[in-house]
């Protein structure tokens, strides 16, 4: 079982959480975005083999959202950080935009 550190409640089983997809995806202004740009926003994700920045919500606990860096190979959660803050560095993390 994967344990995730809720920033409020501490270590809890993965089954208490809801996965929220990739983090740091900014919604473009629909008035100034063409179809390709809107399609990118809706559908295109980085899908890395390695460190992935993603959103989680402690559904069965405090119901708060937070961000996490998770290694998609080992399934280790490397760090957690508040929503709205920039992606932190992680060991072995390759810089990527967004």
């Amino acid at each position: 079982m994967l344990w995730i550190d809720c920033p409020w409640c501490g270590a809890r089983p993965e089954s208490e959480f809801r996965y929220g997809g990739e983090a740091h995806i900014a919604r473009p202004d629909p008035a100034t975005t063409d179809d390709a740009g809107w399609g990118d926003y809706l559908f295109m994700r980085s899908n890395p083999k390695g460190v992935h920045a993603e959103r989680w919500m402690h559904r069965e606990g405090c119901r708060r959202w937070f961000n996490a860096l998770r290694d998609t190979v080992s399934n280790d959660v490397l760090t957690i950080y508040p929503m709205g803050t920039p992606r932190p560095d992680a060991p072995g993390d390759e810089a990527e935009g967004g």
Partner: protein
Amino acid sequence: MAEAPAPRSPLAGLADALAGARADGVTLTDRSARARFNLRIDPKDVEALTAAGAILGGSLPRTPNTAATTVNGKILLWLGPDEWLVTGPAEEGAQLDDTLRGRLDGRHHALTDVSAMYATLALSGPRAREVLMKGCRLDLHPRAFKPNTCVQTALAKANVILHQTDDTPSYEITVRNSFSVYLATWLLDAMAEYRQG
């Protein structure tokens, strides 16, 4: 004017089963009749926290996974960094609603009467921890889970607020009405092996 109907526990249909469930070393009791309020205050608003604390007879707990009992007999359960469940005797509900609302008037807050949304079960006795361990993934050992520890988690897959009230150990399990009969039935089944005779 028509009289308001008397409140009825969502577990009323299980009253006989609960009364008869005198297992050796653990009891299960319906404590659903209770006033409950969901209270949200910005934790940076110290004046609002102080105002609420003055009415409640004690500070709203700021430490995650804890509960506090006040000098007024209110039980304050931490639900989130800006969210608490305030509970008290059912007959004090209307007055508590009025005084809290009055004291917090004009301040940024949310106070919602959720008395009828939940059922509460009290599980108590030397075997109570073992019963819970059958359906709870968290560490309930006394080194990790003590009186006044209060968590939101899953018990037998039902979302619950689990509050340890004393060293017996005793627990109060607060669960949404719609899950309460399922959860009480599950607990009765989990207790069955400790029954004598």
